Structure formats: structure tokens, C-alpha cells
């Protein structure tokens, strides 16, 4: 059976009747009566929509208004509509149907009168439908014009057609916010996804008054079907996730928590992190997350303890990791969550698992996600599985967190000084002796950091591991998060204890956190470590390279004093010393817990 969520328009057009026969033969379809009032000819659109609704468990009956008489049929002569008794009225128009486009000499002050006039016509339609039918109304907002005659100015000038479309769309959104029965279909973004070049079909418009390409009709129909599902409470509610090579790269049972790919350190890890963030964003708007993985339960859970894991166990509403077939686990999850499997979307990188779930539990949506996790959010999004009809409080329990983020915009305004700006970043540092999970990243940083790197010493992973075990050395790593997200592991300092002195063999930092006070935080931590060991001073060196000029003055900037020159250093090197007795912590704008000592 063709996957109607992802197939091309021609897959549907070439075998429409056969598909219809197949889909209409299914049992348990619920009736829905949809009136389509349109500014163009709608037979082909309704034929496509019918297939999608049948596929969603509805048996639609359509009333199609006459070409371009949507206003008359909704307001003046409602007899046909009344006889039809619609459950849903779909007002299907386009920017071609705009009637009060301002003239090119329109001023900023006059623009709103044109918007008002255009909206007044729609208000008449909505009021009439509300009074006469009390049914749900869905109206699309407007796509941008395909041929804006003013070029870029079309989006700027008060008389520009692109500008007018955007003003209208904002007003439509405001109206929808005040009218319970009005839902807006976002044609503006749907047309952007398809592309305006592939949206309007002028030949078909001139020939048959069909405005859109088959591709555009299919995109509109898919979106409308998702809105109908949402209205009837049939949007999906649960995202079921595989683990290995879906939520993180690698196999946790083989690679261990330190070996899986997640975080910021490789392109692959970034892609898994982005997918986890997408999952978390869905959860924060009310979609439940569940895990369905072939794994040892205890081992699988350790994946969520990885410091870079965006998803934590607390985000997972139901966790099934075992060696039973996945479709059996999915049924168990349905029982535990007290939801039908028809509210599930299953995501797994393994095509064999997808196939068996699809075969055993056809009600579960199983998007063909492929094996490239960077594409997963777009593929899942294209399925429109989780369309909300309304947003209610329970949908965003984390609204407070969002509110904090939203302040970013307002705070960007002005700061009295740099410190105030740093405070606004809400920075938190985690600085500690290295753990095994960071061996690879730290070795990698020592080999690729050239600018903020005082000695440019390179280490292999084996050497880092050896230093970590050596009591006379300390390898400190620093991670920094701020309001904009997690910057990952950004700084490394290696100290070597020699009599009553801590020699600083390596000090490096990623340039993405330059001028954030992170070097001060690292110094505070290093001092704490040195004092804990009963040492008197720190000694550090700047060994110049063509690339590390930016840190030539770092030590004096941090309060180090010039120490006697050493013979065997490269030309231009300098040696610096810090006395620990008189040291006062320097970090003012980064939150950081004191170094924990085992």
C-alpha cells in the first residue's frame, strides 16, 4: 500500500480509484461532512483529500461550492449549505482571491484600512457560518504572491503585495485567537515548503480554474487531513523511540556509555543531539516519549546518564528495553500508558524493525525515516502526526522555561557594562578532574586547539588516560552552559605537581567561549586543587607559536607575576608564577560549584 504521507502526487493521481476502493473497504470509518467553499475549482483537491481522510479512519462526504462563490454561499445564499449540514466548513482561497490590495501609492498610515476592509469580508463569512451552522471553520491564510512586481520592495512598501499578505496573515491569526470555531491552515508555510514555483499552475487555472499544482493540492490536503484528525482528537500522542543509532550513535551494549556518539564533538554527535532536542521539544508541548529498544534494561538506561544526553530518564514516560519482539513491547507500552496503539508513532533506524511493527501493528504510524538521523525531525514533521487543534495549559507545563528564553529578545537591548551582559548569559560551569567519558574529547582538543593554547602540547588518548591515573598530575576539564544552550567541553588544564609547585603543562580553551570569564573559572578550580594538595604556587609558561598570540598576555592578566627565565624554552617564551597565599577567587559571572574531592 502506498504511504500517502510521503508519496508523490503522481503516485496518487495515477491510481486514485484503485486506492479509493482499497481504503473505502476498511471497517470502522467514521462519517464526517465537509463543505469546501473555494476561490478555485476543487474536484481534484477533494478527491485527494478523500483518500487521505479515508486513510485516517474517516469516511468524508463533501459539498463543493460553486467556483469562486465562497462569499455568496456562506453569507447570502446559504440554502445549499444548510441542506448539507456540514461538520466542517473549509474556506479554500489564495492570495489570488484578495480583493482590497492597496494601490502602489498606499501610505503606512492608510495600510490598515485596506487590511480592515479585507478582513471585514471574512468576518461576515465567519459570523454567518457561526450563527447558521455552529460548525468548525478552517480557513487557510495566504501564500506570498508568485510574481511580486515590486521585487524586494513588495515585502516592505505599504502598497507591496507581499507586505499585504503578511499583514493579512497576522490579522487572521489575531481573529482566530478570538474565535473558538475558527482554525487557520498555514498555507503561508505550506507553500514555502513546496516552493511557490511549484505551487501555482497558471495553465490549469486558465484552462479549468484549478489554481494549484497537484503537488500543492496534496500538501494542502495532507495538512487539512491532520487538522481534521486533530479536531476529532485523533492526533497521535506518543513518540516511540529506539535507542542505538536512533537516539545516539553506536551500540551502548558494545561501546558503553563513554563510547556512544552524542554531544557536540563530532558532526554525527551533533545530529543525534539535534534529534534529542527535537524529541524534547515535542515532549514539552505534550507529546509523550517512550523507549522501545532491544537492549539490556540496565545498560540501556546508562545511555541517558551521558553528560551530553539532552533526554533524561525522567522525560521517558514508558521504558521498555529487553529482547522481546518490538510489536509485543509496543502493545505492553499501550497497556501501561492506557492509550491505543493508533496514537503511536514509531521511530527506529532499523528497517527490519520498522517492517515488523508495520506488519504486526498497522495502526502504529511508522515513518520511513531511513538511517540518517539528521533527517529524522523533518521526516517526522512531514507526517504531521502530532497536529494540535488547540494549545491548553497542560500542553506546556514547561511554559515558565520558555518564558525565560523569550526574555532573550528583550534583554538583548542594552547593558550598562560587560559584566551585566555576562550575568545575563546565566552561565554555569562544570569544572572537575577528568572522567573516562572525556578522554577522547580532551585528547582531540589538545590536538586541534591552536589559538587559545599556552603550550600547544599534543597528547594521545592513551597519554591522557595515563595522566588521569597518575596522582602527581591533575587533568581538569571545563564545560560551560548558558542561556543559549550547552557549549560542551571547552577547556582543559593539565597540572603537574613538583615539590610545592603546580606546573601548568597545558592550558587550552575553545574560542567559542572567549571573553566569558571561563579562564578565570578554570584558574579558580586549579587553585582549589593546588591548595587541596598543600601547594604554594602555580607556574605557567607561554610558548609562542604563529597562532597563539592571543594568549601571550594571559598570565599577567590573571595576576601572575613574571618568573625567572628558563634556558631550554623556545625564543620569545615567558614564565609566570602565582602565589597561592594571597589568591582571591576571580569568577564573578559564572556559577560554579566548588571542586568536589573524592
Amino acid at each position, binding site marked *: 500500500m502506498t504511504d500517502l504521507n510521503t508519496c508523490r502526487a503522481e503516485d496518487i493521481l*495515477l491510481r486514485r*480509484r484503485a486506492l479509493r476502493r482499497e481504503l473505502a473497504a476498511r471497517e470502522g470509518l467514521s462519517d464526517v461532512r465537509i463543505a469546501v467553499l473555494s476561490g478555485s475549482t476543487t*474536484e481534484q483537491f477533494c478527491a485527494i483529500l478523500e483518500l487521505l481522510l479515508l486513510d485516517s479512519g474517516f469516511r468524508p462526504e463533501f459539498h463543493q461550492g460553486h467556483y469562486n462563490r465562497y462569499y455568496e454561499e456562506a453569507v447570502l445564499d446559504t440554502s445549499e449549505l444548510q441542506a448539507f449540514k456540514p461538520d466542517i466548513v473549509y474556506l479554500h482561497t489564495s492570495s489570488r482571491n484578495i480583493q482590497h490590495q492597496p494601490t502602489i501609492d498606499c501610505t503606512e498610515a492608510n495600510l490598515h484600512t485596506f487590511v480592515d476592509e479585507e478582513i471585514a469580508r471574512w468576518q461576515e463569512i465567519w459570523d454567518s457560518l457561526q450563527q447558521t451552522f455552529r460548525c468548525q471553520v478552517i480557513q487557510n491564510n495566504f501564500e506570498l504572491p508568485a510574481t511580486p512586481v515590486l521585487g524586494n520592495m513588495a515585502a516592505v512598501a505599504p502598497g507591496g503585495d507581499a507586505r499585504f499578505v503578511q499583514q493579512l496573515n497576522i490579522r487572521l491569526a489575531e481573529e482566530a485567537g478570538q474565535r473558538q470555531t475558527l482554525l487557520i491552515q498555514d498555507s503561508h508555510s505550506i507553500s514555502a515548503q513546496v516552493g511557490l514555483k511549484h505551487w501555482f499552475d497558471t*495553465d490549469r487555472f486558465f484552462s*479549468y480554474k484549478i489554481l494549484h499544482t*497537484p503537488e500543492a493540492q496534496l500538501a494542502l490536503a495532507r495538512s487539512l487531513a491532520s487538522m481534521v484528525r486533530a479536531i476529532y482528537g485523533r492526533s497521535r500522542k506518543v513518540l516511540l523511540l529506539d535507542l542505538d543509532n536512533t537516539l545516539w550513535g553506536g551500540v551502548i551494549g558494545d561501546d558503553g556509555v563513554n563510547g556512544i556518539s552524542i554531544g557536540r564533538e563530532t558532526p554525527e554527535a551533533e545530529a543525534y543531539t539535534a534529534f534529542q532536542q527535537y524529541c524534547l521539544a515535542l515532549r514539552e508541548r505534550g507529546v509523550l516519549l517512550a523507549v522501545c529498544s532491544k537492549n539490556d534494561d540496565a545498560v540501556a538506561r546508562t545511555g541517558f546518564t551521558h553528560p551530553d544526553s539532552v533526554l533524561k530518564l525522567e522525560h521517558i514516560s514508558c521504558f521498555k528495553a529487553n529482547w522481546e519482539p518490538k510489536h509485543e513491547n509496543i502493545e505492553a507500552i499501550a497497556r501501561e500508558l492506557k492509550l491505543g496503539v493508533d496514537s503511536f508513532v514509531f521511530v527506529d533506524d532499523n528497517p527490519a524493525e520498522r517492517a515488523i511493527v508495520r506488519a504486526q501493528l498497522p495502526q502504529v504510524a511508522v515513518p520511513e525515516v531511513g538511517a540518517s538521523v539528521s533527517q529524522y525531525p523533518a521526516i517526522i514533521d512531514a507526517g504531521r502526526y502530532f497536529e494540535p487543534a488547540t494549545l491548553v495549559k497542560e500542553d506546556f507545563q514547561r511554559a515558565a522555561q520558555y518564558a525565560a528564553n523569550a526574555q532573550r529578545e528583550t534583554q538583548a537591548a542594552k547593558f550598562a557594562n560587560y559584566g551585566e551582559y555576562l550575568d545575563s548569559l546565566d552561565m554555569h560551569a562544570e569544572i572537575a578532574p577528568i572522567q573516562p567519558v572525556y578522554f577522547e574529547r580532551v585528547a582531540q582538543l589538545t590536538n586541534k586547539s591552536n589559538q587559545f593554547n599556552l603550550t600547544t602540547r599534543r597528547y594521545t588518548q592513551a597519554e591522557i588516560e595515563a595522566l588521569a591515573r597518575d596522582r602527581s598530575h591533575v587533568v581538569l576539564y571545563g564545560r560551560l552552559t548558558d542561556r543559549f544552550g550547552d557549549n560542551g567541553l571547552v577547556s582543559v588544564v593539565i597540572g603537574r605537581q613538583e615539590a610545592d609547585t603546580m606546573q601548568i603543562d597545558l592550558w587550552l580553551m575553545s574560542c567559542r567561549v572567549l571573553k566569558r570569564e571561563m579562564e578565570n573559572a578554570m584558574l579558580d578550580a586549579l587553585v582549589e586543587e593546588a591548595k587541596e594538595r598543600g601547594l604554594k604556587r602555580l607556574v605557567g609558561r607561554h610558548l609562542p607559536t604563529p597562532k597563539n598570540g592571543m594568549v601571550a598576555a594571559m598570565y599577567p592578566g590573571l595576576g601572575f607575576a613574571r618568573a625567572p627565565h628558563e634556558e631550554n624554552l623556545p625564543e620569545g617564551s615567558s614564565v609566570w608564577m602565582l602565589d597561592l597565599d594571597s589568591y582571591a577567587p576571580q569568577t564573578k559571572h559564572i556559577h560554579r560549584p566548588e571542586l568536589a574531592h573524592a
Partner: protein
Amino acid sequence: MPDLSPDTVLQDLQPIFQEALNDQQIVVTRVSSAFNTPNWDSLAHIDLIEMVELHFKVKFALGELHEMKNVGDMVDMIIEKKEDD
């Protein structure tokens, strides 16, 4: 598309007409047209043109659609377009 002749094109058109006109039994000939063929109304015509364009990977211009009076015209236009490729 190999071996494109008036006969093979007509043969290829049969299942398309059967689908567009919703009649599994129908067989069209070069003289079939909207006037002498059941179910070939304006809406079926839209589907038909769409499906023919998709199947043969051709695109009819507005003027050509206007000149197309029967199945024979359609067959000849398809061959002409494929030869120009």
C-alpha cells in the same frame, strides 16, 4: 520510451482512460472523443490530461489542449513531443 508508434501509444493510453473514465471495460480508438465516449466529462478530462502528461512525461501547452479534438490528435501530439526530445 522505446518503440513509440501510434499503435503502442494508443495501447498505453487504454489503462489511463479506464482509470480516468472509471470504466475498466472501455477501449478507445483514434476517433474517440468527449462527444462519443461515456463518462468523458470536463472533470475526467482534467484527470486524463494530468495522467497522460505524467505517464509519457510530456507537457501540453494551452493551445495544444485547445486543438486536441480526439484520441488520434492526442496520440500524434505525444509522438511529436517525444520525437522532439
